[in-house]
């Protein structure tokens, strides 16, 4: 492995072979040929990252207790405090609660994703690809020692008779007809964009009771259905954060085919993490919208 690139030597040997490989399904492959794109190789990039805790991906600066605010250590943009309205002092009763952003998780994710992505693009560059279609990304845990592996792969394509590209290839999660339709509608793919945000919730006493469903009559104002304000607020903040960081990567282009996955993990009672991942395709208009032919109506006979 040459130190700067991070792409192993075996990769170059593989990519220099005469035959192509493609991770595309046959229908995507056919659509690719139809668009005038020629698959030249399956390209991939990986990055293994050690995370701070062996138990979970999200314990951040370790060693704080409920008496210190973790936010002071987090230096994130988002924090919200929830005070206990009851004025009770007891070891069991939570005097305050907090929602806070966990930038160290976002940074780790960005580092892993970016490194893997850069390596994939390098592989595509070595075979003179103009673009990479049908990108897939994944994060998996390796062993029990808190190691996460980021992997990104896609199929590198070339436009025959066009000179080798001077800059890096464009990339897109789309493939097949979904890509063909975008181009038909007058757009070209620029790049994939993806971001994660992480918000940790330390439940306040009210949130805890509402989530548990017990103690309602004792502590809540009344027994009607009520909104769990702290959780709602944390989810909204997490989504807003991830949206903003994707938006910051667009540089004036448009976003298409967005996919939002939200993972929630409860580490302990009243201690949870909300982690949305937002993915999409940066696209740019290259010609005016040319209306597509009117679709035909169909009914299946089965």
């Amino acid at each position: 492995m040459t130190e700067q690139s991070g792409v192993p030597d075996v990769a170059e040997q593989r990519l220099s072979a005469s035959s192509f490989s493609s991770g595309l399904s046959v229908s995507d492959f056919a659509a690719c040929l139809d668009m005038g794109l020629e698959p030249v190789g399956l390209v991939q990039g990986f990055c293994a990252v050690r995370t701070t805790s062996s138990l979970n991906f999200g314990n951040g600066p370790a060693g704080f207790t409920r008496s210190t605010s973790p936010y002071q250590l987090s230096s994130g943009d988002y924090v919200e405090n929830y005070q206990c309205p009851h004025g009770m002092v007891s070891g069991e009763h939570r005097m305050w609660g907090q929602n806070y952003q966990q930038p160290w998780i976002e940074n780790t994710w960005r580092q892993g994703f970016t490194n893997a992505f850069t390596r994939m693009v390098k592989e595509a560059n070595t075979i003179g690809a103009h673009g990479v279609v049908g990108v897939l990304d994944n994060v998996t845990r390796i062993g029990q020692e808190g190691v996460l592996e980021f992997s990104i792969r896609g199929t590198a394509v070339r436009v025959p008779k066009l000179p080798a590209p001077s800059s890096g290839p464009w990339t897109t999660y789309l493939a097949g007809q979904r890509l063909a339709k975008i181009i038909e509608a007058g757009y070209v793919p620029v790049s994939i964009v993806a971001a994660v945000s992480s918000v940790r919730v330390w439940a306040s006493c009210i949130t805890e009771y509402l989530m548990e469903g017990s103690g309602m009559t004792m502590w809540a104002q009344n027994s009607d259905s009520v909104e769990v304000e702290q959780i709602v607020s944390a989810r909204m903040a997490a989504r807003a954060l991830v949206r903003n960081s994707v938006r910051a990567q667009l540089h004036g282009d448009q976003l298409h085919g967005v996919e939002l996955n939200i993972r929630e993990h409860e580490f302990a009672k009243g201690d949870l993490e909300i982690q949305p991942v937002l993915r999409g395709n940066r696209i740019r208009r290259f010609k005016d919208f040319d209306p597509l032919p009117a679709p035909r109506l169909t009914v299946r006979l089965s």
Partner: protein
Amino acid sequence: MSEEASELARTTEHRLEELEKGLFTSDLSVNEFLLIKEVGFHPVGFVMGSSIYHTGIQTRKWGQSQELTKLTEAMYNARELAMTRMEEEAAELGADGVVGVRLDVNYYEWGKDAAEFIAVGTAVKAEDGVSRLNKLGKPFTSDLSGQDFWTLLQTGYMPQGLVMGTCVYHIAHRGIGQTLGTTGQNVELPNFTQALYEARELAMTRMQDEATQLGATGIVGVRLEEKTHQWGSHTIEFLSLGTAVSKTSDDITLAKPITIISLDN
């Protein structure tokens, strides 16, 4: 066992004899059946091959990432045997190829460290009588569905064989010293990255070598599977699979797709 491998079980012969009389079995869906007929092929029988393999043990060094070549070989040979037997069944039926091939691994309670590798698929024969055997004179194999087979043929490509490559890799455990050294930091572990990266590239290179032997122009539908089997979480098999294809004609007869609105539900 290689000599006996060609002597398929007696029950097989009986089953295949019946198939030769014109009765055919297939696991194709009705749509797949019709599409395969449409491109001029006829299913001749459901074929399979299996191999029970003792995968053995290979010592691994706790703190070192390395390929476990013996295991790699075992996993590869076992699949290869299953595939070859399936091809033999197909050849016996006079088939030109096998579509919809599935490769599975089963573990049984009675056999510790033993695994059964199975390859199953539907053998097909060209109706025009022209041989479609691949460069090695064997029936072509592919994991394509009937629909995919049809589509591929419309683009001027012909499947040559299901190709695979495998690499069993042991990933180093991190020593306590290393772990402590990076406590509290989120850092890339270049050794890990490289080990896993290399293992996958090796598996894919081996797959491509198989394709080259078949004289294929390329491989479509490449999948990369990662399995730990029964070796514990630090030993991983990287298996890459795909269908090698070669260009047989420059005509693309695939119709331009039309946009539709489905009125179902």
